[in-house]
Structure formats: C-alpha cells, structure tokens
C-alpha cells in the first residue's frame, strides 16, 4: 500500500470512569487532508475519545491505555506542558457549545490574537491583521467591529464561527470537531459545513468529525467509524458504508433516519430497546440485546474485528446479514 502516512494514529485507546470502561480499545487512523467521521449515539464514547486525544479528559476519567501517534510522538505519554503547546496549535478543536469554549471576559480580538502570539510568535500588528483575515474567511460581517466585541454580543452561529476562526488561525494539522453544528439552525449549519470543506480543500487540514447526524456524515466524510457502547463496530469509506453497511447496528441506524424520499406515515425502522448507559455494557457483543440477528454465540463471546477488504472492518459474528426492519415498536 502506498497510502500516505497518517497524521494521527490511535491504537488500543481505553478510557475509564471509576471501574467503568467508557472507551474500550478503540483505534483509527486519520490521513492527511482526510475527513473521518466518528459516529454514534449518546454515551457511545465518541466525545470521550476526542477529549482523550487532547489530554482534556474530565477529572473523574482516566486514560487506561493506548497509543496516540501524532507527528512522531505518543500523545498518551506526553506531559501536560507539551500537550498544551500542541492544543490550539497543531491540533485545534471545536465543540458543540461555542459559549462554553470562548472566554466570556475577553474580546473576540483578544482571544484570536492570544493563540497567534503565543503559538506563532506574531507581533501585535501582525496578529491583528491575521485575526481580521480569519474573521473574513469564516464569513463574519464587519470584522473590525467584531474584534472589539465580547462573545455575549454575538449570536450562536457567529460564536461558532469565531471558535472556528480561532481553531483555524493556527493552521493546525488536525481539526477535531465535536458536534460542531448540532446546536445550530440548518441554514447556519450549511454555512459552517461549507466552511470546513473549504478549509480542508485549501489547506489540506485533516478533520476528525464527531457527530450523531448521518446527514452531516454523508455531507462531509471520506471515511466513517461507527461507535457503539465504547467500541468501533464498523469502519470504512463513507460511500461503501452508506451503500452497503455490514454491521446490523449500522444498517438499522441508517434505516431509522427519516429520508426525504421514504413513504410518509409508514412505520419507521426501529432499533428495539435503548442505548446502554455509559460503561454498563452487556457481555459479548454489546449490541446483541438489541440485535434482531443475535444468537447465543453473540452473547457468549466478543466478535473479533474482521478485515473485509477495501479498507473496511467490522466486528460482528453475523456481519452482512440483513436484520430486517427491527421491531415494530
């Protein structure tokens, strides 16, 4: 294989909260200029994975093991001081809630300039010019005026754009976007997704996109990794996964999204039961209690991750079989 070396390579990453393992030996690689979507529902561990990569786990959680290869170093073993130098510099992050990520007591201009001056050693003038250019690039009107404003004076969509401007100002190798448009209206979401695509196209930034929204995945991703109950259950190129999902969870998840072309008022595909609480995973295949294809073997032993060719992997004893419509209710 002549694939370029990945910019980010995660292997065997595990995170625990107390005795509960909330992320269980996940691994993936992000190629230069690639958009990889990490998809899953609440509590599946996708956000914990992102926080672990940046060394930003909440106090109650700890990294139990794994390797996070980035630019020749293992971030899992890097001291906090060195991680801090990477964050907002080589790896930038955008979270769902911009108001929680921007400092309410600092002007937009000061927050933009801070990173530029600290990480890129720019002078005051240069940082100001660069900040203006960044705000223009993310489609913010009247950028001069915005630099002097505080986050509370801006709308949610505008705050999200400021956060993206801050994240991009550093020209990071990797952008980590955790539900970047979930809190936004759909017409604003379309603007933000377009902006992220332009960034990737023009600067070759790799994007790890964390989302629960299959529409956003289809719009953005080159490759997809589907998480369920702390593990990646299926991964591969986006077109292949959407056209021919192999894991019953992926299949049912895709079928349970209402589409603009399905029969209105018809019974929708449903996954029986509910998403297990974080860390309270059932034995064997964790999807087995909700899986229409489950058989005794599924509960008895964990499915191995199998390579299917074409860059696809799946962890299921009965992969490729059709789980049907799920249950009626």
């Amino acid at each position, binding site marked *: 294989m002549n694939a370029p070396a990945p910019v980010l390579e995660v292997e065997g990453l595990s995170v625990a909260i107390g005795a509960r393992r909330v992320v269980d030996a996940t691994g993936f690689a992000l190629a230069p200029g690639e958009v990889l979507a990490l998809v899953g529902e609440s509590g599946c561990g996708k956000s914990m994975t992102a926080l672990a990569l940046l060394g930003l786990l909440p106090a109650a959680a700890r990294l139990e093991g794994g390797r996070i290869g980035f630019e020749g170093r293992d971030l899992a073993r890097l001291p906090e001081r060195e991680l801090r130098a990477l964050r907002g510099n080589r790896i930038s992050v955008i979270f769902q809630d911009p108001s929680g990520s921007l400092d309410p007591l600092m002007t937009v201009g000061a927050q933009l300039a801070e990173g530029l001056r600290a990480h890129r050693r720019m002078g005051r003038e240069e940082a100001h010019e660069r900040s203006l250019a960044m705000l223009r690039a993310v489609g913010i009107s009247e950028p001069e005026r915005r630099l002097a404003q505080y986050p509370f004076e801006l709308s*949610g969509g505008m705050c999200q754009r400021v956060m993206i401007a801050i994240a991009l100002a550093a020209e990071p190798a990797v952008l980590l976007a955790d539900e970047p448009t979930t809190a936004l209206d*759909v017409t604003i979401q379309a603007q933000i997704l377009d902006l992220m695509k332009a960034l990737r196209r023009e600067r070759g930034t790799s994007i790890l996109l964390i989302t629960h929204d*299959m529409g956003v995945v289809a719009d953005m991703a080159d490759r997809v990794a589907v998480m369920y109950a702390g593990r990646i259950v299926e991964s591969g190129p986006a077109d292949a996964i959407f056209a021919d999902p192999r894991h019953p969870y992926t299949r049912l998840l895709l079928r349970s999204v*209402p589409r603009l072309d399905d029969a209105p008022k018809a019974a929708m595909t449903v996954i029986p039961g*509910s998403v297990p609480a974080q860390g309270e995973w059932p034995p064997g295949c964790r999807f087995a209690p909700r899986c229409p294809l489950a058989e005794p073997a599924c509960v008895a032993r964990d499915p191995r991750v199998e390579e299917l060719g074409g860059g696809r992997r799946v962890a299921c004893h009965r992969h490729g079989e059709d789980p049907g419509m799920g249950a009626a*209710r």
Partner: protein
Amino acid sequence: MNDAAPLLEVEDLRVHFPLRRGLFGRPLGAVRAVDGVTLAMARGETLGLVGESGCGKSTLGNAILRVVEPTSGAIRLAGIDLARLDGEELRQARRRAQMVFQDPFASLDPRMRIGDSIGEPLLVHGLARGEELHARVGELLRRVGLEPAHAARYPHEFSGGQRQRIVIARALALSPDLVICDEPVSALDVSVRGQILNLLLELQRGLGTAFLFVSHDLSVVRHVSDRIAVMYLGRIVELAERDALFRQPRHPYTQALISAIPLPDPVAQRARRRIILAGEIPSPARPPSGCAFHTRCPMATARCRSEAPALLPREGGALVACHEAG
C-alpha cells in the same frame, strides 16, 4: 358535531412580548414572536410547523393552549374561542387539547410514581378514581407500549424513550381532540426516535387525534404530517400539502430550508444543487422591514424591502407569502 367543520381555527394570532429596560422600565418595543398567524386544522390531521430558532413556532403552539397569553387574535377549538375564556371555562375547554414537550426528563415530576402522573388529569377533572382510575392508567400504559405494572415506578427508572411514552400516555388520558407536540423526538437518540414516531402515528390511526407537530427537523415533520406550515420570524411564509411542499417548494425560504438538510446518502448529497443562504436569522425584536426574509433572500427586490407580502393561495392550493414566488 359536524366533521367537516375545522377542529382548530387560529385567526390573526399575535404574541408580542414587551421589551423593557430593567424590571419596571417603560416598554422599549416588543418581540413579535408570533405576528399575525392564521391557520385551520381538520379533525385527525397532522399539521407540521417548521422553522428555525426565533421563528415563533413554539410560542404559537403555547399560545394556542394559552400557556402563553396571546396579544390579539382568535383561537377556536371545536368552535369555542379559547382566547376569550377564563377560569373554569378555560380549564374545561383545555381538556380537548394537550401538550407533549421536547424534554421528557423535565416533563415528569421525579418524586411522583408514573402511574400517579398519568392518572392526575383524570383525577383533577373528576373523571375516574380508585379502582377505575387504576384500570384506566393500566390501559393507557399498555396503549403506549409499556406494562400496567410500570405504574408503581418512578421516572428515573426509565430511559428517555420510555419517559416520552409516559408523557404521551398522560397527554392521552383525557382523550383530547388535539395534541400539540413540541419537538417530541429531538432529545432522543436516533435509534429511539422511530419508536416514538411510530407510536404517535399508531395512536392517531386508532384514536383519530389531531397533531400539531412543531419541529425544526424537516425530515421528521415530512414523515408525520399531512400538511406543513413553514414559519420565519413570527409569520407563516408557506403552507401546503406535504408532497406539494417537497415537490415544489415555492417560497425561497422553504427552498433553502429543504436544500440545507444534508441527505443521509453521500452520492445523492454530492449531486445536489444546494442553496446556501448568506447571513444570520434576524432578531424577532428587530425584524427587517417589508418581507422579513428579504435580508437573506436571493430574489429580493425593492418592493420586498418595503411591503410585507400577504399569505395568498397559489395554483394547486399552496398558500405562499412572497411577491416573487410563482
């Protein structure tokens, strides 16, 4: 009861919230959350109400049941004008309509057994008690896919989807003619949403309940609705049959809204012509002059900036508020 008469008629409804400086200051103006909405619903139909934040869709739903007070206009439910009622009369009239909110966690009292929550409306209205109440609660639980034995449990013992079932059971306790569902599946995981949508559709078929289905999610609204009203800054900009709206959206805002939904299919999504609107949604405290959409509209003319378009019927029956739309 005449079946052909509309179940609900809303006429030129306005909800303006005064804007003051400080607690006792003079009013500086008003947020026109709902600004002249007229619509009608038939018995047993589902009307979808879509729009983005600040469009007034939730306020409209709340004002219909007078959870918020309308500033002016009429709300006739089965011929009775709710806007003119008070006290006991209002309480009785409101039995015919119930609400289901987005957050099933906030909608249930955590210290009450769910059977008591579900039975409360029956008890309050003096419709059942004792053994009969117990039996009715059991029947309601079964109706929403739970077990009568669940009545003795507390909300925290249930998942989000199950709690929304409990909320629906309570809304159905008084056999309402109309249920206003405000983002009923938005807080639920994708894999669980279908369960609740299927339940709502099944209940509607069995009971003939009408739904006003308020949501920001156009694909969900399309799935459940017979007709759809699109709101922007306090007004309905388009109201049409579901299929007509998606086949031939006429208002430029409806067109942009539909094209902004990312399709869960990468090949189809890449092939699409998309309309990406510029700019932000204006504040309903300072709506633009003329047509409120003109600041983001690719078709806007001088007339749009000065003159607000009326919601008028077009060929095929759709109602559209736009000077330029065909």
